[in-house]
């Protein structure tokens, strides 16, 4: 069910939050052992929220009584936040993220914490201290990552909504692998206060849902300026659901020619071409554009993101909270053992890389240089957005891959984010929506990229396409 369907049932009195939540709990309890979308799930904690909600008076907005799962890197008071890492085991945040405060005020029911790649490092949801999450469309395949749990929970209809975070594609790529809608808002659109940072200049929290309208609703609820986040934009939040009604006619989309080189799966290519044809029928203009610096996005990203991550993750030292090695003899020894035992291999790889690129003597060659290239990538988009309103690409070059397929080869894994990464580098909004299925029945996603703070334009185009194409009505066959 979509959010508006549940809301309508509440309004008509045909059902209550406790019924909806009990249904959700039953579904999660019976099916999640196969999928493992949840990193933490406590039915009693969920029921307690329902009790409080039903006892409290006040208005019943569109999110009242709606179940939402939260990625395990967003702080919720009363629940753990571990970033799927052993090093944060036992960490219960003493405060709520701004997005959580907003959701709680709106009456949403938090269902638990969604599995992810450790500290959001990964594109497969396999780098988790809780074990991998599986793709609801094919349990032998990955759900994508790093917000794999959030995407899988939405695809498996455990929750109509989920929160994820996206640093280089961590919302859009799993949305594409799981056949759901996932949006990374403009950098600064949603407060990062309470999001455990991976790369501060790239991270954004964003929504997952099965329809564009539901993502628009959830984004509207969590977006806005936050005095606790200096990087949040002081830009008014429009009513996205109203904006959707304007339709897509007259929109101009650009398709970058660089996105159709080698490495792209033919079925993905085919699905995208058909989707573009469909867009034309909706009165959308489609033209070819060029983003020549796209090829530098991945190397640049892995310098900037790991540099920031190496600093952001330095605080996990065993002193105040989380895991502490029992065998450390001196303070330095305690640090080394705690971090050596607490972090998984991908986290260590990125911390070491990030530490290296910031080191004295290497800074200019790597980090300094990457910041300059980042500006060039931004300029590419600025130029293109003078001609078109949106840029459309495949979300990922391939559909969901098999579990373990890319674990041994980090570089190949990094390439699955090739179309999403430059969007974070440029701070732009991007959304992935389903645009077809492979012959084997795996979802394919297309990505729409917009100008800063023009999420509404993306929602207009995507909503119109979604209604015309109807892919959102397909659900994975789970039993």
């Amino acid at each position: 069910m979509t959010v508006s369907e549940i809301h309508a049932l509440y309004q008509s009195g045909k059902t209550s939050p406790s019924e909806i939540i009990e249904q959700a709990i039953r579904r999660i309890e019976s099916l999640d052992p196969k999928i493992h979308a949840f990193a933490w799930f406590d039915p009693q904690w969920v029921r307690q929220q329902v009790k409080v909600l039903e006892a409290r008076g006040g208005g019943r907005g569109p999110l009242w009584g709606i179940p939402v799962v939260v990625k395990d890197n967003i702080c919720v008071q009363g629940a753990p936040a571990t970033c799927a890492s052993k090093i944060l085991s036992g960490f219960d945040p003493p405060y709520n993220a701004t997005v959580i405060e907003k959701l709680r005020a709106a009456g949403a029911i938090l269902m638990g914490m969604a599995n992810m790649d450790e500290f959001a490092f990964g594109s497969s949801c396999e780098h988790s201290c809780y074990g991998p999450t599986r793709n609801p469309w094919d349990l032998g395949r990955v759900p994508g990552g790093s917000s794999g749990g959030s995407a899988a929970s939405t695809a498996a209809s455990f929750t109509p909504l989920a929160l994820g975070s996206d640093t280089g594609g961590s919302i859009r790529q799993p949305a594409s692998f799981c056949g759901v809608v996932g949006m990374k808002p403009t950098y600064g659109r949603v407060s990062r206060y309470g999001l455990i940072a991976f790369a501060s200049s790239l991270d954004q929290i964003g929504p997952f849902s099965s329809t564009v309208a539901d993502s628009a609703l959830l984004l509207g609820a969590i977006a806005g300026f936050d005095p606790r986040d200096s990087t949040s934009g002081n830009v008014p939040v429009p009513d996205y659901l109203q904006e959707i009604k304007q339709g897509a006619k007259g929109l101009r989309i650009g398709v970058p020619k660089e996105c159709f080189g080698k490495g792209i799966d033919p079925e993905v290519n085919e699905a995208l071409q058909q989707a573009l044809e469909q867009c034309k029928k909706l009165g959308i203009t489609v033209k070819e554009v060029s983003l020549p610096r796209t090829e530098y996005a991945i190397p640049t990203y892995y310098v900037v993101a790991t540099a920031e991550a190496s600093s952001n993750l330095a605080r996990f030292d065993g002193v105040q909270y989380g895991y502490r090695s029992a065998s450390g003899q001196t303070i330095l020894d305690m640090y080394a053992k705690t971090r050596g035992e607490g972090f998984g291999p991908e986290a260590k790889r990125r911390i070491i890389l990030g530490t290296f690129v910031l080191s004295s003597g290497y800074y200019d060659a790597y980090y300094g240089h990457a910041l300059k290239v980042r500006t060039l990538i931004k300029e590419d988009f600025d130029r293109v957005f003078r001609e078109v309103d949106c840029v459309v690409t495949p979300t990922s070059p391939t559909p969901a891959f098999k579990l373990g397929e890319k674990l041994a080869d980090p570089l190949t894994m990094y390439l699955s984010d090739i179309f999403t990464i430059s969007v974070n580098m440029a701070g732009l909004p991007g959304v992935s929506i389903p645009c077809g299925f492979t012959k084997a029945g795996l979802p394919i996603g297309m990505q729409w990229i917009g100008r800063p703070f023009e999420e509404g334009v993306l929602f207009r185009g995507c909503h119109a396409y979604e209604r015309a194409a109807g892919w959102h009505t397909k659900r994975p066959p789970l039993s």
Partner: protein
Amino acid sequence: MNYTTVIGLEVHLQLKTATKIFCGCSNRFGAAPNSQVCPVCLGFPGTLPVLNRQVLVSGIRVALGLSCGVQPRIVFHRKNYFYPDLPKAYQISQYDLPLGSNGFVQVGGQKVRVNRVHMEEDAGKLIHKEGENASLVDYNRCGVPLLEIVSEPDMRFPEEAHAYLKTLKGILEYLDVSDCDMEKGSLRCDANVSLTPDTKVFGSKVEIKNLNSFKAVARALAYEVQRQAAVLDEGGRVQQETRLWDDVKEMTQGMRSKEFAHDYRYFPEPDLVPFSVSKEEIGAVRAVLPELPAQKADRFVREYGLPATDAAGLTAEKASADYYEECVKRAPEGSQGKTLANWILSDVAREMNERGLDDIGALGFPPERLVELVGLIQSGVISGKMAKEVFIEAVESRQSPSEVVKAKGLAQVTDRGAIQEAALSVIQEQPRAVEDYRGGKAQALMFMVGQLMRKTKGAASPALSQEILRELLEKKNA
């Protein structure tokens, strides 16, 4: 052999803003451990810093007060290192764009250049308990706003460094942005010192930490100059390192260099967006800059007719300048500003020095007492020579000068009849003073009190004399 000594100082100044630099926690000193903390200053995962604009205002104030250029583009950097008192494992500081740069401090006839003034956050405090195999951390100090003030290596002698630090502290006190208390750590100083036989090349730099007083700065530098000279005399090389001053042993000792071989991996703080300060904002801070020592000294020369050296001496520290002005305000009109200045610069200063006091307020001899003391001399109650003894005794016993005079048995005539008799003869002998008094000149009364004192050889109670004289003058007037 002769060496040229090169000294530079790094001063850390804690700002006394109401709240910390990046969160809303109270910035109060001396609270119970870990009572002034929140998830932000504890560096909890997911928290973000937000700049306290008051820190920026205080920073600009100090930059301007030290004649620095103000950098309008505000950028913070992260300085990365692991230590248990640093909960994020990085310190938010400034790096290549410090708030202030290229300033100077006029120290006597010498200009000591100020390389930079930048904003940063303080770290927490480790508490090592005697006999326990563990350390405690107090995070209250985490996020306390700091300004780092770095001098150029312009000083050649420990005495110059000491004088620079004194002058700098004086200016900072005038700016009223910090308690400037070295003992409480709100003003901290690290010294860099190197020796070279060749003035064209710098020697290896040694950084001295743990300097908790002005005296420690001077002594540690003197010690270090001797130590390095001895190393060089023997043909050795001075090791570039950080050394700690031991106040008890009166020597510097090397820290294990391994622990401090840091690569801080500075990079721009992505959680704080760079922003610009407008000319108007800087102008607004400049407009409310207080009178600084040099300006105040000029005014003292103009307004109180003091010699330039006296004015400079009085204004070097805000406390003594305020003390002086408080005295002048309380002294009867027309009484000698110069005499008060002399007292402050000689006897009061000497007594503070002997008691090892930095702050005139700690002497326990408030301005009204100095005025009283000078009044006793001027009214002839005691001689100038007596006054020096009375002063020391008054400081010692915390009594007022008059009380000391009384306690010391300086006989005073308190018999109304006797004083009245003397008063009548003064009135008769001094028709002009009487006329002046009746004409509204209050100071004429003091003159007559003085005459009365002289008549009684200083034995009459000044207060009573004044009272009786006034009564008689009013009566006759009626």
